[in-house]
């Protein structure tokens, strides 16, 4: 195995992750300093800088929403995936897969329309929509990841006297982790983008300037929100990519 050839793109990915993270933080903190630039780019637009709320606050609120919804999606999704791959829960597998799939086919806007009358405006209905929307990739990948563990490996684990719990914790989860994390990665990335629509029901997110820009026909607002959401998604994606590599045990995986 040629380590040199492998480590090269990996280290350039790390440089990309670091530089984009720095760019993201700089934009979040210093977007307001770019007001002259936006005024020059959009001379006819007044105001050309979204100033009703600081971008730092919007970003933190956005992250909080994504973090909480992802935590719920991941815990529920992994638990459901584990349950249906145990002997006791195997018969529920089709049911759980279907439910998770329905959760994702439901447009988040429709979920908002249903949840708002029940739970009111703001954070909670957005959270519900994001949790439902982010569940499918986690459930699917948990089931798929556990399915990739070779049956001989499991037989060897049993034959060497491991209990069901020991097999799950020491063998199945570590070996399935890369695929599970890939599912979490998709779920989180989707939710970073989808969280913006929470602003239509009053949740504070990076979607707020985008919605305001769309409603008020203000292109600079849309650009300012969209650039941050896009950058946030790319940085998160790159970070997950690195996390996944830690759990690859096949060829070229654990060489580090």
């Amino acid at each position, binding site marked *: 195995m040629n380590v040199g050839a492998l480590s090269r793109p990996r280290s350039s990915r790390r440089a990309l992750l670091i530089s984009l993270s720095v760019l993201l933080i700089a934009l979040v903190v210093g977007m307001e300093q770019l007001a002259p630039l936006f005024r020059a780019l959009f001379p006819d637009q007044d105001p050309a800088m979204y100033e009703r709320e600081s971008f730092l606050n919007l970003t933190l609120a956005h992250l909080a929403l994504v973090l909480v919804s992802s935590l719920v999606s991941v815990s529920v999704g992994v638990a459901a995936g584990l349950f249906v791959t145990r002997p006791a829960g195997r018969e529920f597998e089709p049911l759980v897969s279907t439910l998770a799939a329905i959760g994702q086919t439901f447009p988040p806007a429709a979920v908002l329309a249903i949840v708002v009358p029940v739970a009111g405006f703001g954070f909670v209905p957005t959270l519900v929509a994001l949790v439902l929307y982010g569940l499918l990739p986690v459930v699917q990948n948990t089931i798929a990841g556990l399915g990739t563990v070779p049956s001989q490996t499991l037989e060897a684990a049993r*034959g*060497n006297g491991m209990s069901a719990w020991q097999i799950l914790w020491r063998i199945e989860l570590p070996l399935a982790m890369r695929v599970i994390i890939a599912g979490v990665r998709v779920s989180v990335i989707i939710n970073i983008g989808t969280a913006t629509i929470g602003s239509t029901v009053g949740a504070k997110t990076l979607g707020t300037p985008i919605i305001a820009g769309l409603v008020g026909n203000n292109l600079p607002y849309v650009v300012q929100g969209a650039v941050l959401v896009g950058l946030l998604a790319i940085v998160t994606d790159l970070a997950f990519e690195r996390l996944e590599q830690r759990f690859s045990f096949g*060829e070229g995986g654990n060489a580090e």
Partner: protein
Amino acid sequence: MIELQGLTKRYGETRVVDDISLTVEQGEFCVLIGPSGCGKSTTLKMINRLISHSEGKVLVGGEDITTLPPERLRRRIGYAIQSIGLFPHWRVADNIATVPKLLKWPSSRIAARVEELLALFQLDDEGLHDKYPHQLSGGQAQRVGVARALAADPDVLLMDEPFGAVDPLTRDTLQAELARVHRQTGKTIVFVTHDMDEALRLASRVALLNAGQLVQYDRPAELLVAPANDFVRDFIGRADLGLKLLSRRRVEEYCRPAQRTRNNAIASAPITWQVDANDRPMALLGGRLGEPETARTVVNPEWTATPEMSMKEALSRMVWFRVTALPVLDGEGRLLGEVTMSGVMGHRS
């Protein structure tokens, strides 16, 4: 000691293992063999309860296996399968330490045991300790698998076609090594294979199964000279029977005293070995096919035999080099005796 009493496994109406009774004595190397689907693997897995039996009893060391929790039972019985059974996310040392860790041995004892096993399987000088399974060759991975099965020093070792996935050359080496480890450790081994040559090579007893039933349980040579029925005869293969038998026998069983001389003079015996001052054979006088009895043939290292060599190999060398006798040499190359073409027939069975 392992005792199977009327062991049966039913799936619905099908009896995949049907009323098998046999005893594997302490230190025995028992090979379960038979065609695909004969129930040999199922029988093996019922010994450590990877598969639960429907009827009958299994006693390991005199104890009924159902009296122990399955995990405790399995930690006392070594279990080796094909190399893919290694845990891919654990290094070699961690893989070998699986059972000792489950038994909560102190870490110093585990480390010492791992080193001991790496040495036993000649894996210690290759820096393999910290490698992951995918970095190993097939033969190395298989050795690690057997080392893992032996880690907690179980009395009994179960092996399910452990050498099925390696190339013939490596398999040959692994078989020789397993035979050596068996001699050194005196473990009771139950070994599943579908390869008759492997069975004849390793087994001290062979259990031949067909359609879930035990057809014959005997010493390998008995299987060859006294097959219980046509199925056994067919399974062993009607061809090569004599050679298969010879492959089980070692040169030392056929070795007889050699006639020596220190000069070119022909002695009274038809075959005479000319030896040097250190009793090393220099030349064979007579005993060369198609040549007069006085012919002198210089001894070539390629047509000598050692006491451990199989008679099949010795016979093969005689045929290939057209000599009717081979000198049997000890480790220093001294003449211990001879095996002859006519002696091949004269084994007292």
